[in-house]
Each structure stands twice: as C-alpha cells, then as structure tokens.
C-alpha cells in the first residue's frame, strides 16, 4: 500500500511545481550526458530525434478508407476549407496542418530536392488527384508531404495530418496508371501508414458504418505497425451520417445509436476512446454559410415542412427543376443542396422557421448539431490534455530500443558501450515506473481492454482525476475553477473514500482492487498538489 511517505518530490528546490514535461526533460538531459564521445554519435542523434518528437506538438493523423470523408472532417474541425474535397477519391498527398502566425506552405519532395515554399492557396493543386492531367501528376508524385501553417486557433493544442485513404483505387491491377504515375497505389497506402505511424494519435474515420471492410481496415492499421491504435491514442469519427436521412428523420441521433452499437457490440471500445458521429457536410456547410444562403433558407422555410421535405427528398430534381411552389430558383437551390446536403437544408430551414435567422446563430447551431464541436472537444481533452503523457509514452518505447543500436552488424560493440546505452535509455524508461501518470495510463488501458470493470460513473471519475478534462485540481475534481482549497480537499477525500471502499470490496476482484489503489494514489497526489494548507481529518484512513 502506497502512502504519502513514498510520494516522489513533485516540486523543485525553489518550490515551483515541476510538471511531467519538466521531469522528462531532465531525464533526457541525464541520458545525453551518459553518451559522450564519437562512439555514441548515432545514439545521441537518435536520442535528440526522440526528444524533438517529445517536444513537438502532438500530431493527430486523420486516417480511414478512401472517400470516408477525411478531408471534409479536417475542414470541419478547422472551421475553414483547407483540404480539397470532392465526390470522387481526391487526396493524393499527405498534408500536415499546424498552427502558425502567418500562412505558409512548405513542400517536401521525395527525390531529395530541398523543400520549397509555395503559396498556401496552391495546396489544392498539390494534394488533389489529377488522373487526367499528366503534368500535374508528375508534380504530385514528386511530393513527399506538405506542411501547411495557418493561423487557426483550433490547432493550438495539436497538429492535424490529412492522409490519403488506406484503400486506394490505384490498387492491384491498373498497371498502366501505375506506371504512368510512377507511384503505385501501394505507395499511396504506404505514405498513409508511415505518416499515421509517425503520428502520436489517430482520428479513425469510418464512413457511416463499421462492418467487414472496416474490420479489415483495423486489421490493416494494427497489422501495419501503427502503435497508436488503442483507446488512449485513438478517437473515432463516424462520418457521412447525413445520408441516413431521410430514412431516419434525425440522422445525428441515429448516428449516436450506431456509434454506441459499434463501440459495444463490435468491439470498438478495444481500439477507440470514443466514436463521435459527425455530419461533415453539415459542419463544412455551416462554416461556409453566407448571408445569401441564410436569406434563401429563410425563404424556403416559409413553405410547409412536408412540401419542402418532399421536394428535397428528390435531390437532383430539387436542384434542377422549376417548381411553382418553391420560392427559391433552381440555381440557388442547387447551391444550398451542394453546401448543406439534403438533411442540412431541411434542418437549416427548420431552424430558420423556429426563428433562428441570423447568420452567426444559425452557423453555431448547425455546427453544434453536426457533432463536429463535440469531436473537437474530445480531441482537445483526450489528446490535448494528455499530450505530454502520450508523447512520453511513445518516447519511452522508442528509447527502450536505443541499446539495440549497438547490435548493428559490423559494429564490434564493447560490453561497456552497451551498458552506457542501456543506462541512457533507462533514464527515460525509468519514468514509466516512477511516474504515477503511467500507472494511470496502464489502469485506463486495463479498463479499455476489459480486464478491469468499472461503473460508468467510476470510469468518468478516473478519466477526470487523471486529467482528461483539464489539469487543474478543480478540473480533476469536477469543481468550479474558483473553488477554494477546503472544498477541493473535501471533494478529493470524498472520492478517495469511495475508492477505498472499492479496494476493500472483495467481490470486485483483485484487478479492480489494484485499480482502486491506483486511483486512491491519484487523489493522494492531487491532495499533495493542493498544498500543505489542508488539514487532514484524523482517523480517515
């Protein structure tokens, strides 16, 4: 049983609180000092790489099958049209989108050419498929990946990586096209897997279902050596749910039901933290919505809802035929349908009918309903708030392979050299044992793989106390940000008592008891952090 005596110092000598990141940086520094001299050059280079990865912003890759709606989702998350989208398979190259004060587009080439700057609005040209244009194809195939910097505050916590699909039309047979491209479908696939594996976390995109082929996708992703496919580092997005309409009057609700089933019945919980249904077209439509659109929507909202629905249901006719009973002309109707889709058009009209006729309000409501706001929040909380831990976890794994550098053929390694490498690696890998955060991580993994069973309330408590919803003591205790120390302390103690009960409940088994001890320890650390101000009521433990 852990007690307060064993708590590692979490404050520096000057009393300033040290974070996980600080301790990790210190470990990297110690490791580096263990590797002096030219014989450790390679190891030092590797260590620097790993440290740079740790220091860099969290990289979230958006992966999924071709035309699953990845680029639409990226645009929806950004709230602006950056990745080109279309009805046919489109994305050919990998793009990293990151926050920058000024817009910039850097092209990294595969042929060793130095990377070059391009105008940001050229992105479409460099990413989008161009099957019928040999010149552009030649240009496209020379590109390794693209780095787009944009001043977008939604990228504050992590970078987004848009990838081509994992299943490409440039498949097995079209040898002609392939030779022509000089870049095989396999290459497109490989590029996706490589970038995904370089990512710290994934957004797995499933187009309106998770069945056989998606099972295969998972197989592919897990089989391709992506270490990130687990609930700690993977969030799912269920896209194209707007196509449930009109079969389902509320496709978002249906999307929720489908997502639930996929998570529970189909074993989604084993690989995904959460599966968020997203009506991507609704989201991008909302972001791009203009005053003109609103005016047209308001016009259309004046006719009876049933007539409107009947007309919209016949999509192509709604967009092209003259109807005396529709107040908006065909061209504008077509524009609305393209921008919002059938469901979006009907929904926006319904909202307008209910009085939501200002652009900002309509936009906000549509965004909320599309599910993209929720997805953004999940990404921020789940990835953003745990970014350091997730990256450190990756660093620990990579560092553990450092000693293997001495095993390279042709290198006559002294046992001593090997020992120094092991020592250096140890500086980082040791954190896994000493940092309580890793225990929490292990606990969460056990919860996700089903070896520890918690009630939904308990799971949410665990997520909360381990920093899912924010790092501050108040956030970890579900209290208002301005809560005083005493309310923080009593809340923490209250929770701790619950977990003490779980620990002692023999009926819940050894694994759960051990989990409960980990959680109690989390509250211990939290109490520690809240400070010495608290007076511990006697006889509580």
């Amino acid at each position: 049983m852990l007690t307060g005596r064993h708590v590692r110092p979490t404050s520096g000598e000057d009393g300033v609180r040290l974070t996980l990141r600080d301790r990790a940086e210190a470990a990297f520094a110690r490791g580096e000092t263990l590797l002096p001299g030219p014989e450790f050059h390679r190891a030092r280079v590797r260590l620097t790489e790993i440290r740079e990865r740790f220091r860099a912003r969290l990289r979230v890759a958006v992966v999924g099958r071709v035309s699953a709606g990845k680029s639409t989702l990226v645009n929806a998350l950004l709230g602006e049209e950056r990745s080109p989208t279309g009805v046919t398979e489109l994305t050919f190259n990998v793009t990293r989108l990151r926050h920058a004060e000024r817009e910039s587009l850097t092209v990294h080439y595969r042929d060793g050419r130095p990377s070059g700057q391009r105008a940001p609005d050229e992105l479409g040209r460099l990413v989008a498929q161009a099957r019928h244009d040999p010149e552009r194809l030649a240009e496209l195939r020379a590109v390794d990946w693209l780095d787009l910097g944009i001043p977008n505050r939604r990228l504050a916590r992590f970078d987004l990586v848009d990838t081509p699909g994992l299943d490409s039309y440039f498949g097995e047979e079209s040898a002609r096209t392939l030779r022509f491209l000089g870049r095989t479908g396999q290459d497109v696939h490989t590029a996706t897997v490589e970038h995904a594996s370089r990512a710290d976390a994934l957004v797995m995109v499933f187009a309106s279902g998770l069945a056989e082929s998606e099972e295969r996708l998972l197989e592919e992703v897990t089989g391709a050596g992506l270490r990130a496919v687990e609930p700690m580092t993977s969030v799912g997005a269920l896209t194209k749910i707007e196509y449930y309409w009109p079969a389902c009057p509320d496709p978002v609700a249906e999307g929720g039901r489908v997502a639930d089933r996929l998570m529970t019945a189909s074993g989604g919980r084993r690989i995904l933290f959460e599966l968020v249904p997203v009506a991507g077209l609704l989201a991008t439509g909302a972001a791009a919505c203009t005053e003109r659109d609103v005016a047209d929507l308001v016009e259309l909202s004046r006719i009876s809802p049933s007539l409107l629905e009947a007309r919209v249901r016949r999509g192509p006719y709604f967009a092209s035929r003259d109807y005396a009973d529709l107040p908006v002309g065909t061209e504008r109707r077509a524009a609305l349908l393209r921008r919002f889709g059938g469901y979006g058009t009907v929904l926006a009209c319904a909202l307008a009918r209910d009085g939501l006729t200002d652009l900002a309000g309509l936009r906000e409501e549509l965004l909320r309903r599309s599910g993209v706001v929720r997805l953004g929040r999940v990404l921020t909380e789940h990835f953003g708030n745990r970014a350091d831990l997730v990256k450190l976890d990756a660093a620990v794994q990579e560092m553990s392979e450092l000693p293997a550098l001495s095993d390279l053929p042709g290198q006559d390694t002294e046992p001593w050299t090997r020992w120094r490498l092991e020592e250096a690696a140890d500086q980082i890998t040791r954190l896994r044992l000493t940092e309580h955060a890793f225990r929490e991580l292990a606990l969460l993994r056990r919860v996700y793989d089903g070896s520890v069973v918690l009630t939904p309330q308990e799971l949410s408590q665990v997520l909360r106390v381990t920093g899912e919803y924010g790092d501050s003591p108040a956030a970890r205790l579900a209290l208002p940000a301005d809560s005083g120390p005493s309310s923080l302390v009593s809340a923490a103690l209250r929770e701790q008592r619950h977990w003490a009960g779980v620990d002692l409940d023999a009926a819940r088994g050894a694994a759960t008891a051990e989990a409960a001890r980990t959680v109690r320890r989390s509250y211990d650390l939290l109490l520690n952090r809240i400070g010495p101000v608290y007076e511990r009521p006697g006889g509580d433990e």
Partner: protein
Amino acid sequence: MDGGRWLDMSALPDVDPDEAVSEEALHRLRELLRETAASPIDDENWGRMLSVALDETAETAPDGSAPDRAVPDGPAGDGTHGATAGGPAVGDSAAAGGDPAPGHRAATGHHAAAFDRLRGEVLALFPPLTEATARLGGEEALARLDTARERLDGGRLTAVVCGEFNRGKSSLLNALLEEEPPLFPVETSYTTNVVTTVSYGPVERITVTLEDDSGEVVEREIDRSEIAGYVTESGNTANARRALTVQIRTPNTRLTSGLTLVDTPGIGGVHQDHTAATAAFLPSADALVFVTDVVKPLTDSELAFLRRAMKAARTTDDVDGQIFVLTKIDAVADHTELLRNTVGKLAEATGLPPDELTLLPVSSRARLDHLVSGDPEDLELSNFTALENTVWAALSRRRAKVLLGGALTGLESCALSLLRPVEAEAAALGDRREEELHRLTEEFTEQQRRLEELDDGGSRWRADLRAALSGVETRLRREARNGLAEVWAQVGAEHLYQEVYLDNPDRLLSEVTAQVAQLLGTANELAAREAARVVREFSTYNGLSLTPARIGRLPDPPVPALPPVAGTQQKEDAERRKLMGSSVGLAAGSSAGAAGGATIGALVGTLLMPGLGTATGAQWGAYIGSALGGLLGTRAGYVNATKTLEKEQLTGKRDALRRALAPLRKEQERHLDNGTAEVIQEWSRAVVAELDSRIAQERETAARALVRLDSAREATAREALARRAELDGERALLDGLRLRIAALTEEADLLYVPPRHSGEPGTAVPGGDATAVPGENARYG
C-alpha cells in the same frame, strides 16, 4: 369456325415483319394451314386458344415494337437527371397492353410482362395436350410432358445482387419487390451477412438453414420478423448462429414467373465461406446486379470482385448478364461526376469499352416513395422502369428462353408423337390405301427395329456418348486448369508484391479460394450446357425425329436432373467428408461462423437448387459444395502456416509465403479435377437417362402407329370414311396446338435480341433497340 377466322389468323405471327424469321414462321404456318382440312372443329380448347392467340398477338405489338425494349434513363449532359425517355412510355404501353392494375403496376417492365404472359400461355397449352396424350398417347409421352410442364412451372430465373456492404443492396431488393414494409431488413450501419434467396410461394414460408452445435445442417422455419435475427450483423453478430442461408418464399406477384432474387453478403468480406459459395454460384446465375452508390466511389475490393466475376462471365458468354447500378441518386444534387468516375473504373475492371457499358443511376428510395405517394416524379427519379427492363432483358437473354424453349420443345415433341400415328392412319385410309399401308408399315417396322437397337445396352451410341462426354470432361478440366494457372500466375506476379496481401496472407488465401471456387462453378455451368448440346446432337445423329433438333433459335433445352439416388449418394458423401477430414475443424477455427467443409455443400446446394427448371439441380449443388468444402478446408490449413510470417521482412515474407503456398495449388488442382469429374459423371447419368426416355417415347409412337395401321387394314370403305373424319378432327386439334407452339416459339425467340454494339451512344442498352433510345444513357466514349 369459318374460313374468315382462318384468314385472320394468317396475320398471327406477324410480330415483327422486318425479322427474317417471321417470314419463315409465316411460311411454316401457312403450310400448316394448307394441310389442315376445312372440316369443323368444335373443340372448346381449340376455340379458346385461337381467341387467346388472336388477342395476345395483337397485344404484343401495340406500337409495332418488339417486346424487349429497355430504355434506361440517364443523366442529361447538363447535370440534371434527364427526362425519363423510356419510363412513362413503357408504363403506358404496358397499361395499353391490358394490365388493369392501377398506379405503379403499370410500371412493370416490358420484359417481365412479356415473359409472364408467354409463360402463362405456354403453360396453358399443357392441359389440352395432356388430355389429348392421355387419350391418344403412351406413358412415356405423358411422363415427359409432365416433366416439361413442371420444369417451366417451377423454373427459376435467378438474379444475384452483389455489392459492398451499405451500398443499398437490401433497399434495392425491397424496391424491386415493392415490399413496403420491407422484406429485407435495412439498417443504417449493418449489413447482410448470410446468403438470402427470395422466390414465389403461395403462402409465405421462410426457412433458415443453419449448422447446429453438433455440426449438423438443420432447417428451421421462422417468420418475417425473425429474418433480421439471422441475416444482419446486429441481429446475428459475426454469424454466431451459424446460419448458412435464408430462403424466403412469399406470395409476391413480382415473383410469380419464377424470378428468384439472391441477396449476398458484402463482397470481399470476412465471411469467406459465403464469398466462396457466391463465387461458385455466380456462373449459374442468370443476371448479376452489381450495386454501388453515390456516397463513395468504387473501392479496390469491389473492383477486384468485378474482375473476378467478369472472368466467369466471359467464359460462359454471359457478359450481357452483368448489370451495373448506381444507387442513392436521390441523396445528391448531381451524380454526373461520380457516374463518370465509376464508368471509367468499371470499364477498366471489366474490360468493356466505356461506350458499351451501362451504369444505371437509380433511387430505391424514390421507388419505395412512389409506392406510397403514387407521384410519377418519384417513379421517374427512381429510374426503376429502366432497371427492371434491364434486369429482365438479362434474364430473358438466356434462361427465360431456356425455360420457355424447354417447355415448348416438350410440347412440340409430344404433339408430334401424337400426330405421327394419326397421320399414318389417315394416309392408310386415303385414296391409295394399299400402297400407303404397305409403305407405312414398312417404315414404322424399320423404325421400331432401329429403336430397339438403340435401346439395347450394347448399342454403339452409348460408347460414342461415353467418348463424347469424356471429351467434354477433358475440355472442362483443361479449361479449369488453365483458369487455375491464371490465378496462380496472378498470385506470383501481382499479389505477392502487394503489401496488403503480404501483411494479411489470410486475405490472399480467401481471394485465391474464391477464384478457384468460381472456376468450379464455371465448370459446372459449362457442363450443364454441354450436356444439353450432347443430347441434341445425339438425338439428331441417331434420328430421334420426334425432338426437333432445335426449336426456333432458342438455346438447347436443359437435360432434366435426376432425382438423387439416396443410398449410394449418402455413402459417397460420407466418404467425401472423411476425405476432407480434419480441415473442417481448421476451417471452424479460422473465422467465426465458418461453415466446415461438410456444411458448405448445403450452402451451395440451396443456391443451386432453387428450382427444377434450373439447369443444375440439388445434387450438383452437393457435388460442387463438397469440392468447395475441400477447397475451404485446404485454405484453412494454410491460414496457420502463414500466420508465422508476420515479423519477417518484405522479401522474406514474399519468399516464405510463396513456399508456404506452393503445395496449395496442387491440392486445388486435385479438388478441381475431382469436382469436374464428379459433375460430368452426374451429367452423364442424366444424359443417358434423357436419351433413353426419348427412345422410349419414339418406340411408343412407332408401336402406336403400327397398331393404327393394323386397324386401318381391317377397316371397310365406309368405316374408313367415318374414321377419316374423326382423324381430321384429331389432326386439327394437334395442328392447332402446334400452330400455337410455333407462334409462341417465335415470341420466345424475340424475348431478347442481343445488343448490337455500333459504338454509338444508345446502341448498347441490353435488350435495347437502337432507335428507341434517345441517347440519354450513362455512357461515355
């Protein structure tokens, strides 16, 4: 019956005056008419049939068009969904054709209507002829007539619906069946995971075939509400209930003519047994409806499936039976771009020039909406009129003709067998009595002697037949082996260089297994057709004159399947199972719900079985099934072998996989050879039985003729006069029936005219007519 009526009837076969065949038919009919005595015919049936003939033929060509016109709708160039050129027109003419049903009924395709009607009329010829046979003919003739009727009555036209999950297959089936509430469960996220067939039954009866805990195949009756519990992923996750097939029989009027729709699990799926079973079954299907949608462009696995299916279609010459459908067009403003993209990919995958490829944009939703709303705009958007016509054109292309042709041949052969003795007797009672008597007696005696010779077990034709069939076997085996070599060449040159397969050898195995399963199915289908050809050739060669060598231009009528011989069959099955042995366990372990080798037979069996009229019967299903079970078992053995490869380097993996798979080809070859041999053996039995039966019928006829000649010899002059009048009546009846048979044969022939590809838009519509299409089709040059 006066002369005026007869004269009117000369216009009867005038279905299409431009067709050369019509001239022939006209001539034939005029000949018949000249021969027919002008004596009164009071037979009730006769009169009824004549009136039917007059009315129906008038109905066939209300506007001078052939009944096989398919006018698929397509998008107009400006991106809007083009005006349905064919829709209302077809609907109108169907209504003008006397269809009294209101609303959407009028939308029933021309082909469906034409086949339905023809089928009904052919079936209507059986009672009068059966009655006449009972009166005038022999046992064998009666039995054969009965078989012919049953085979048309129970005959099936099979359309298989394929496509990736969530593409809208089930909705399409519901829309085709006009089932509201839907028969096929439609879910937003899950997919059909069990092969489901739906066909006509007077009362709804739904049977699920499944494997019980002890591995036995059992059948269970369920009701409509339980279907989802077996065929959907949510109701039956990973097929935990181990369902093999669900067979639905339902009193749906769209199915009365024998249409059977098959819903398959998503292609390229993890349900490998079902994938293999579908692949084995595809060559026997009459139409393949490939479904994709506007939500997502075609994927690799879909294209791989199409390439495979196309291979079989080319071998069996069924390319015209492949129908491509783009669904959910109601969901987007404009599907032109995706349509173009899809046509391009389809062209590449199928090897068809884009301008010969028809991709039908449809909306199942609009079709179902139309059932409720009755709004013609819904029907127009749905484009289902064109879809139904295209499906029926594909079905009419071969099987509908096989079904009708088989029945018509049976009728004609029976009528001839009755007519011969009557004609003989009439001639013997004629003016040159002695002369004719002598000649005819000699002729029939000689014929009887020859037939006896043929009937003899040691007759030469039997040896010839064995030689012919073994030639067929050699050819089919060579075909199958070539196919196998092609499969493995592709593995060596392509698959082993694809990381996807190197990383997942299991997937490579299922792809290869599906391809080999398809080879097996192709061999089976070709064997069925070869058997029919052999029967025709032997009948002609040996002068079995009752069966016309070929009736019209219709395909050879199929050889009837023999009832399974219970005892020996079971024993062989048991042996086969033993042969497959441990593979069953391996298969079961390889994927959840995998049917073992022994049960896979049941799966293919139900697929191949769906009617007496199909060329292939139940036991062929079992044969294919057991060979397929062997294949799947073999596959399972390699799953484990390839699992160890995971950590290896790319090149290492490739070599290791190559080594691991090397013996598989040998084993597959053995299964293919055995499968082909068994199938041929079964067909040989059926061919011999059929030829024996034909000989028996001819012997009956000759015997009857001789009896009649004997009685003619005895007759006095007065008796002869009276008898001749009687005989004239009989002849008139039979001639009348043959007239109808000839007219219906003519129509069956015209059910589908193969498309003439001239490269111009609008000429490539399956069953279409170049002049009828205003160039609004989904094709791009």
